[in-house]
């Protein structure tokens, strides 16, 4: 075998890696926050009293679950100019990633809402709480407990999915691997480095979730 693993050969490219990693992080964070908001909207739509609204919400989720993210990214990237919008790679990736993730967020939030027993609403209302008070003191804490772990997993999923932004020409970690690998022919090294970056990002989220979870939910797993 004529290949020896030498990390030193790609040291010069570590400067670019930093920039790429920042892009990955920024893209992921923004997509997560925005998709939670959009997902909350869709989850509420699915609980609407109006049937067309419910169907629309359900359709949105089904489309996002069954269509590859790559196709959605291409659609946003190539369709935007037709609608007169000039989107940068970052913006196109952000929109596509957000739209896709929102479908999954909606399902997570919906499951959290369903898990609150109706008796909880009744008890709180019977004590004279206003709608806002019921949401704040009784519903939200219980929903949050239910969705906490799946939400953490979805955050990780978004970080991994951000790698597809390569396809719309964004400079992030996956494209760094491909570019640097091509110029240096050191694909093994770039793969290991890229893998480490993602590993660190994902496992950090995991560990943070567990540690924060212990602080937030002292009574352990809910009934």
């Amino acid at each position: 075998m004529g290949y020896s693993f030498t990390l030193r050969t790609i040291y010069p490219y570590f400067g670019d890696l930093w920039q790429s990693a920042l892009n990955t992080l920024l893209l992921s964070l923004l997509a997560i926050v925005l998709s939670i908001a959009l997902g909350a909207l869709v989850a509420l739509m699915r609980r609407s009293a109006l049937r067309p609204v419910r169907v629309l919400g359900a359709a949105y989720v089904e489309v996002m679950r069954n269509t590859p993210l790559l196709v959605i990214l291409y659609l946003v990237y190539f369709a935007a100019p037709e609608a007169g919008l000039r989107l940068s790679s970052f913006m196109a990736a952000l929109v596509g990633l957000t739209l896709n993730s929102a479908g999954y967020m909606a399902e997570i939030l919906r499951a959290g809402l369903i898990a609150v027993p109706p008796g909880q609403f009744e008890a709180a209302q019977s004590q004279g709480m206003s709608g806002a008070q019921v949401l704040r003191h009784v519903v939200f804490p219980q929903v949050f407990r239910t969705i906490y772990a799946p939400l953490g997993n979805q955050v990780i999923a978004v970080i991994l999915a951000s790698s597809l932004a390569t396809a719309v020409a964004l400079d992030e970690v996956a494209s760094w691997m491909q570019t640097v690998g091509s110029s240096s022919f050191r694909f093994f090294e770039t793969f290991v480095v890229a893998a480490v970056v993602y590993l660190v990002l994902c496992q950090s989220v995991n560990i943070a979730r567990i540690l924060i979870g212990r602080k937030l939910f002292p009574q352990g797993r809910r009934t």
Partner: protein
Amino acid sequence: MIQYWPLMLKAAGTTLWLSWLAMLLGAFGGTALALLRQIKFAPLRWAVIGYMEFFRSIPILIVLFFVFYGVPLLLEVDISPFVAATLALALHASATMSEVVAAGIASVGRGQWEAAAAAGFSWPQTMRHIIAPQALRVILPPSVGVFITTLKESSLASIIGYIELTRTGLLVRDATGGGFVPLLALGAVYFVINYAISQVGAALERRLHVGRRSDLVGAMA
């Protein structure tokens, strides 16, 4: 654009074939891994768990890049995009499947093992005649989800030049003047295929009377 439909359908077939092959390999690999986890040898279990955690913490795209670009350099062999995609998808699927299969095996109660042991069954016999049939009922529904995920991930093969559904869609788009309607059609084809498969999965679930494992929700690819 209509004239390109046969091409698109053929490409859909290619995608289905690629996904199916990767899924099969992934299922075998996942089963092997799940069985390895049963062995009470700590370092082996840690290795399997490490494998799983590794593949679930990195994007499949970089695995694909590595297999396609890196392995030829390493081993000095040529790898076609098809082989690279199949391998990468299978590796990824096997990580998820090992958890699905392990859960399926775990779902079979202790009492079954004890009854089999009491009757003199060996471990392979117990697995084959008693545990596996019961585990399969629990394994099948989430496997459908893994297949759908694999199918969506197969679209990434277009990035390394394999002519499957997404690549074909892009080519059709170029050939028809670069609009976005071909992309909508592309999305629609994927949607129809995956939605149909998920309905089959739901019907399976109902017939097998098994509850949903919500923590095995499909990946975002």
